[in-house]
C-alpha cells in the first residue's frame, strides 16, 4: 500500500463519515417528528372523537364498525343536549359565579399583594410566611369545616356560597406580589413626592404595569370556576344554582345501557367550547401564567 493510496482511502473515509453523519442526522430528525406526531395524534384523538360523535345519529354511533367521519351531520344533537342538560341555566350560573368571584378576587388579590409589596407594617414577613404555609395544606382539609360553616351561615344553595370562600387565593397573591416587587421602588417614591396617594398609585401605576400577570390570573380563575365540581356539588347543587360541570355529569348518569352518546358528546363539546375559545385567543397568557407558577414553585 503506497502512501498515496493510504491517503486516498483516508480521504474517502472522511468523506464517508461526513456523509454518514448527514444520513444519521436526517434519520434521527425523522424519528423525532414521527414520535411527536404520533403523540400529538394520541392527544388529539379524544377531541376528534368527541366532535364527530357529537354529530352522528345514535344509530350511526352504534355501528359495530365505527365510522371515522359521520355519514350525516346532525346538528340537532346540540339542541337536544342544550335542553336535556339545561345547559342554558348552567352556563348562566357558571358565568355569573365566575365573573363575580373573579372580579372580587382580583380586587382582593391586588390590594393584598400591594400591602405586602409596598406598605410597611410590623410582622409583614411573619404574616407572609404564614400565608405561604397555608398553600401546602390540601384543600380537602378546609372543605369539611367550610361546609359546616356555610351551613351554619345558611348559605347553602345560594350564589354566595359559591363565591365567598374562594375569594382569597394565596398563590395568586404571591405571584402578584412578586410582580409588584419588580416594579422599581423609585417610581413609588417619586409618586409620593408628587403627592400621590397609595390608592391612586396602586390603580394608576402598578396595576397597568402588571397587566400580563393580572390577565393570566383572571383567565386561570375563570377556567377554575368553569371546571369546579366538588364544592358546588357539595353546597349548591339545586336547579337554580347548579354549575356547568355538575350539570353535565349528572344529566347523563349511567353507562350500563342506552345512553344517547352523541347527545352526551354534544353536551361535552358545548361545555368545552368556551374554554377552547379562550385558549385559542389567549393561549399566551394561560401558558405564561402556568409556567410562571412552575418556575417559582
Amino acid at each position, binding site marked *: 500500500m503506497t502512501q498515496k493510496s493510504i*491517503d486516498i482511502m*483516508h*480521504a474517502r473515509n*472522511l*468523506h464517508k*463519515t*461526513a*456523509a454518514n*453523519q448527514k444520513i444519521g442526522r436526517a434519520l434521527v430528525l425523522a424519528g423525532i417528528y414521527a414520535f411527536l406526531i404520533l403523540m400529538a395524534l394520541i392527544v388529539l384523538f379524544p377531541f376528534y372523537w368527541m366532535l364527530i360523535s357529537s354529530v352522528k345519529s345514535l344509530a350511526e354511533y352504534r355501528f359495530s364498525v365505527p365510522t371515522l367521519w359521520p355519514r350525516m351531520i346532525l346538528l340537532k344533537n346540540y339542541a337536544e343536549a342544550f335542553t336535556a342538560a339545561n345547559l342554558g341555566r348552567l352556563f348562566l350560573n357558571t358565568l355569573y359565579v365566575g365573573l363575580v368571584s373573579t372580579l372580587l378576587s382580583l380586587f382582593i388579590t391586588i390590594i393584598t399583594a400591594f400591602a405586602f409589596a409596598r406598605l410597611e407594617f410590623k410582622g409583614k414577613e411573619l404574616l407572609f410566611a404564614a400565608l405561604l404555609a397555608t398553600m401546602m395544606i390540601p384543600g380537602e382539609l378546609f372543605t369539611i369545616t367550610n361546609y359546616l360553616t356555610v351551613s351554619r351561615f345558611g348559605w347553602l344553595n345560594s350564589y354566595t356560597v359559591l363565591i365567598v370562600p374562594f375569594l382569597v387565593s394565596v398563590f395568586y397573591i404571591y405571584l402578584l406580589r412578586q410582580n409588584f416587587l419588580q416594579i422599581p421602588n423609585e417610581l413609588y417614591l417619586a409618586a409620593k413626592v408628587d403627592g400621590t396617594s397609595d390608592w391612586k398609585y396602586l390603580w394608576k401605576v402598578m396595576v397597568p404595569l402588571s397587566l400580563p400577570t393580572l390577565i393570566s390570573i383572571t383567565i386561570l380563575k375563570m377556567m377554575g370556576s368553569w371546571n369546579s365540581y366538588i364544592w358546588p356539588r357539595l353546597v349548591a347543587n339545586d336547579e337554580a344554582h347548579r354549575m356547568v360541570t355538575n350539570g353535565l355529569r349528572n344529566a347523563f348518569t349511567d353507562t350500563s345501557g342506552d345512553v344517547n352518546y352523541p347527545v352526551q358528546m354534544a353536551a361535552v363539546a358545548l361545555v368545552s367550547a368556551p374554554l377552547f375559545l379562550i385558549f385559542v385567543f389567549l393561549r399566551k397568557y394561560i401558558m405564561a401564567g402556568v409556567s410562571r407558577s412552575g418556575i417559582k414553585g
Partner: protein
Amino acid sequence: MKHKQKGVFIAMKIVLQNLTKIFPSRNKKSDEEVVAVNNFNFEIPDGQLIGLLGPSGCGKSTTLYMISGLQKPSSGRIFFGEDDVTELSTENRGIGLVFQNYALYPHMTVKQNILFPLQNLKGSDKLTKEQMLERAYQAAKLVQIEQLMDRKPSELSGGQQQRVAIARALVKMPRVLLLDEPLSNLDARLRLQTREEIRRIQKETKITTVFVTHDQEEAMSISDMIVVMKAGIVQQIGKPQDVYDDPANLFVAKFLGTPPINVFEGRVQGGTLYLGEDAVLPVPGIPDQPVTVGIRPEGFILDANGPLQCTPVNVEVMGRDVSVVSTHNASANPFVRSIIDADNRVNVDSGAVRYSVKPHKLFIFNKETEERIYFEVK
C-alpha cells in the same frame, strides 16, 4: 487519524482556503446580509500559537467557530493537515475548544469535567478507567489544578475555572486547540499571569493553537504569528514584531501598539514629507500627494535642531521613560504623544519642543486607500 500515537500530542497544520461566512439579514425588510468572514486564506503552521486579533465584529470569533465546526462556512474549505474537514461535524474533528465563559459542566466536579471527553473516546482510542484517570491527572498537572479535582466549578475562581477548561480541552490530546477570548473575563492582574500560562502550556505540548482576542497587547506578547482582521477581511498576517514594525495599512498601524501611533495629515512634495510647515523627512520615490502619516511614540528623538516642532502641553513621568504630550497642527488627533528617555529634560513652559524622527518608525499611507506607501530608508 490512524497515525496518531497514544499519549503524545501530534501537531497539525491548519489550512483555511477561501473561507467565507455570510449571515442572512435578520429582518425581512432589508436585503442586507452580513459578510462576517470574507475569503480568508491562511496556512497555520503546525505547533504554533496564532492570535486572531481585531475589534469586535471583525469576524475573528466566527472564524474560530468555523475551524471548530460549530459554524458552517458559506464557502471555502478547511483542512487539518491533509484532511478536508469542512463537511465534518464538530464531534469528529478532534479539536479542543476553550469557550469564553468556560462552559464547565456545573453539576460535575473538576475531575468529572476533565474525564468527560475521555469517556467519549471510541474504538481503538478507548481507554481503561485507570488510563483515563492518569490522563486526567496529567492534564490537571499541566495547568496546575491538581488540588482542585473534587471541587465544583461554582466553587472556583475565574482563573481556576479557565484552567480547568483548558485541561478539559487538552485531555483528549486534540490536534488543534482553540481559545475564544481566553483572557477577557479575568481581572487585570490575572491576565498577565494567565497569558504566560497559555504560552507555557503551548510550548510544552507543541499543539497547534489558535486564540481570539481584541487586546493587541495580549496577542502580540504570546503569539508566534498574528492575524489582524477588520470587518471580515484579513488585514495582515505575520510575526508580531514584523506586523508592528511594518504595518500594511493604517488600520493595522493604529490597532497595534500602546500608546497608539500618532496620526498626522501631511503631504509629500518634491521628495520630502511635510507635516504642516515642517519638512520632516526626505522620502525619495514617492510622487507628490497628500498622505496620512503615522509616527510611533518611540520614533521621536528630542533634537533642538529637529525638523518637527510641537507645542508641549504636559510631561508625564513614567519612571523608566518620559511621555511628552504636545500638539501639532497637522496631527489628526488632539494630542501627539512621544516616549523618550527619562534622562531628557523637557520644559513644558518653553512653548516649543523639537524632534527629529526615526525613519523606520514613520509610516506613510495613501490618503484614500490607507494602504502603505513604502519609501527607501537611507
